[in-house]
């Protein structure tokens, strides 16, 4: 059984790489969709369809559409690419909502102060709003990444050689069931716990500027 450790580790590595790529794609898609929704009136409905549509569909069927149906339209993707695009765009819908809540939680007065000083809307976005985003969206975003990691197990169904797929190969080859499944469950759990601890740690770092220092408290 120990001989299979490299196989499992390879699967783990693929899972991590795919989740990282999907998270980046999802964040980019989410921010793009939310900014479009805010600034381009004519595309508002389309953004809504994207968000509501993707959030209403199971990830599995989106992957099937990308992997089995897209070739019929001339788009042939390898499993990994289909997986990253599917997971990324699917989570993009959730990240868009997270960004929306983030933007909404910035007090209006800050924006008014900026525009009364003559800052352009683009400057307000890049200097006032976006820099605050990481601290504002971190907790829900970390939560979403955890969901993404767990959803990535579904990629095994379209034959991406990630953790679940590699482990089920072991099951098929060795006919041992309990041990591989247990290791699989523990690895996901560890991954999820790790990300959530990392999230808590960076939350403390990112929100440090919001807390008054000891001195500041005494002065006020």
């Amino acid at each position, binding site marked *: 059984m120990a001989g299979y450790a490299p196989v499992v580790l390879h699967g783990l590595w693929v899972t991590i790489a795919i989740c990282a790529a999907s998270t980046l794609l999802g964040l980019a898609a989410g921010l793009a969709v939310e900014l479009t929704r805010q600034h381009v009136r004519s595309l508002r409905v389309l953004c809504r369809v994207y968000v509501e549509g993707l959030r209403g569909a199971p990830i599995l*069927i989106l992957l099937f*559409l990308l992997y089995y149906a897209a070739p019929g339209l001339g788009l042939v993707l390898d499993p990994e690419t289909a997986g990253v695009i599917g997971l990324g765009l699917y989570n993009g819908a959730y990240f868009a909502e997270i960004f929306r809540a983030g933007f909404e939680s910035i007090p209006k007065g800050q924006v008014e102060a900026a525009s009364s000083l003559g800052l352009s809307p683009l400057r307000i976005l890049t200097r006032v709003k976006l820099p605050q985003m990481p601290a504002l969206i971190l907790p829900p975003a970390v939560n979403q990444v955890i969901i993404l990691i*767990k*959803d990535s197990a579904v990629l095994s169904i379209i034959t991406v050689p990630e953790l679940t797929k590699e482990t089920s190969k072991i099951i098929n080859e060795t006919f041992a069931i309990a041990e591989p499944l247990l290791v699989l469950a523990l690895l996901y759990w560890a991954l999820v716990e790790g990300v959530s601890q990392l999230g808590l740690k960076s939350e403390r770092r990112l929100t440090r500027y919001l807390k008054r220092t000891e001195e500041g408290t005494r002065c006020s």
Partner: protein
Amino acid sequence: MDLGLIIGSLPALARGAAMTLFVSLTAIALGLVLGMLLSFARMSENRWLSAAARFYISALRGIPILVLLLMVFYLLPAVGLEAPPLVAAIAALTLNTAAFQAEIYRGGFAVIPPGQIEAARVLGLGETRIKTRILIPQVIWLVTPALVNEIIVLLKNSSLVSVIAVTELMRVSQQLVSKTYKPTEVYLAACLLYVLMNLCLSALGSRLRRRIGGASAGGRP
């Protein structure tokens, strides 16, 4: 795009969707009972009970449903429990949603002012009566929006039970694809059915949210 094919497969897809709803709602209902018990265990003063509940909730929230499904489906027979796919599917979804529901209920209990419980204790109400008469009715009402959200998540997750051959919407569409070789039409139709079901649910959810938001705002002095 072969519209005739989509229309022709609608009855089969609808039967699949009915199975999807059945599996999801059964798991939600069973998960409600298990989740409520878990949240009580989690808040219990008994340290071992509380730690056990915490462990369960953390583990089940950390394991992908697909993995849990495989565990239930393959490991139950290994310990001598032969479970048909449908039972294994509902069991796995229940075990999963119970962990999430437990946290939802804990959040609900946390917002009930402790004074209400003190008032009940002072009048001599027993702990069980306090739970069934004072706490649970309010918590269920307070968490309905979160619960509707959980139904949506579970409904989507239920597509995974297709891998152990439960003929719900996902499985039915796979069968149709292998018969017709038209993945675009069939998967798109199935996808739309999922979206439709979930849009109805989320409309219901936001309606409840408005109602409850108003009620609870007036409910607290």
